[in-house]
């Protein structure tokens, strides 16, 4: 599996996904999303709580992709309303990121390239003035210092909470698998039953088989074949 995503750890889940899609020179379609699912999952797995403050969003995106992949393998699967919304949202975010990427390039190319300068204010040197504010007192300084200190120390706390909230991708994969069909097992034969011609049937069998191999690679499914040349029975682990 060769894929390279070099990202700033705070860039977020969509930047990463868009990069994967664009690396494969694909446009944003359900099919292209499904095709980068494995790479994306591998990427999310390579992240850990330590280097990503808000990993939960990456996991949400990964789970949406897995959902779409499951649906592409098992067309009988029906999305819930919530899942439909999740998928629409993902597509919308990716489109927003396509616009954003374009805009970013423009900013990047102009930022600090040809700067406009203004002059620095010149302090009146000749007269040394001292203008006091009568509210000023040691007590005032102390209370401002203490308040500032509190807000300065606070952000760390927020970060910790965010990390604790993060979901692990393993849990999500499990959730997805329970979503695959109400039936616990599926056979390749039933999957290709809808095909009209033998030729078509063969085609479906082959593509499904390839797709299933990918899921198997992820350890998301198990496949059993009771007799040589017999039907392959899929089940979740």
């Amino acid at each position, binding site marked *: 599996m060769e894929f390279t995503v070099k990202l700033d750890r705070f*860039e977020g889940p969509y*930047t990463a996904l868009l990069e994967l899609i664009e690396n494969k020179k694909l446009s944003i379609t359900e099919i292209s999303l499904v095709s980068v699912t494995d790479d994306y999952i591998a990427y999310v797995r390579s992240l850990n709580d330590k280097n990503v403050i808000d990993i939960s969003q990456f996991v949400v995106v990964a789970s949406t992709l897995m959902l779409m992949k499951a649906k592409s393998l098992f067309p009988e699967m029906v999305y819930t309303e919530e899942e439909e919304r999740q998928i629409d949202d993902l597509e919308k975010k990716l489109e*927003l990121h396509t616009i954003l990427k374009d805009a970013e390039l423009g900013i990047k190319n102009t930022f600090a390239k040809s700067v406009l300068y203004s002059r620095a204010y010149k302090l009146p040197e000749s007269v040394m003035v001292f203008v006091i504010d009568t509210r000023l007192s040691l007590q005032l300084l102390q209370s401002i210092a203490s308040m500032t200190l509190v807000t300065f120390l606070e952000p760390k706390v927020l970060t910790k909470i965010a990390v604790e909230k993060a979901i692990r991708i393993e849990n999500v994969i499990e959730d997805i698998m329970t979503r695959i069909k109400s039936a616990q097992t599926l056979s390749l034969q039933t999957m290709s039953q809808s095909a009209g011609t033998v030729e078509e049937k063969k085609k479906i069998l082959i593509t499904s088989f390839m797709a299933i191999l990918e899921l198997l690679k992820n350890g998301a499914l198990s496949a059993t074949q009771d007799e040589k040349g017999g039907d392959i029975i899929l089940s979740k682990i």
Partner: protein
Amino acid sequence: MLIEKIITILYLSGDPISCDKIASLCEVNKEEVVAAIKELEETASKASLLIVYDGENLSLVTKKEQSALVEKFKQKELEGDLTPANLQVLTLVAYLDTPNKETISYIRGVQSSQSIRALLIRGLIKKEGESLSLTTEAFKYLGITKKEELPDFERINQSFTKKLNEKEGQ
């Protein structure tokens, strides 16, 4: 003459100065100052200078074409680097209409507090209430005198707005 007064103030101040403050110094109302901006730009340009207007503050600056000369003169290193995350947030603040932190985090899919904070500290964005916008400093770094001069502003701004409004459903 108002134009002359404003130029004098901008020249003295150097730093960006709000239209409110200018109005009070010139003893006119703010609307008169804002109405004078166009003429102000023309006047400044006669002396090869530009007026930057970020929607609130005015500042008198040198032209983009002269930036190499200025750098030679100032011999000061520019803080030209933006991390990818900060670049992303700056771009969103630039092209959206005064977005808040939530909108930015919503689009990016990550908490954006850190980047927003970094940009606030560098003085590239400002926060009024919850609304974020570019500062005069950012305009200067980008070599533009108003928001509309951002690369491809109108098209990108509209694409964003259109796409974001589709949000309703959720």
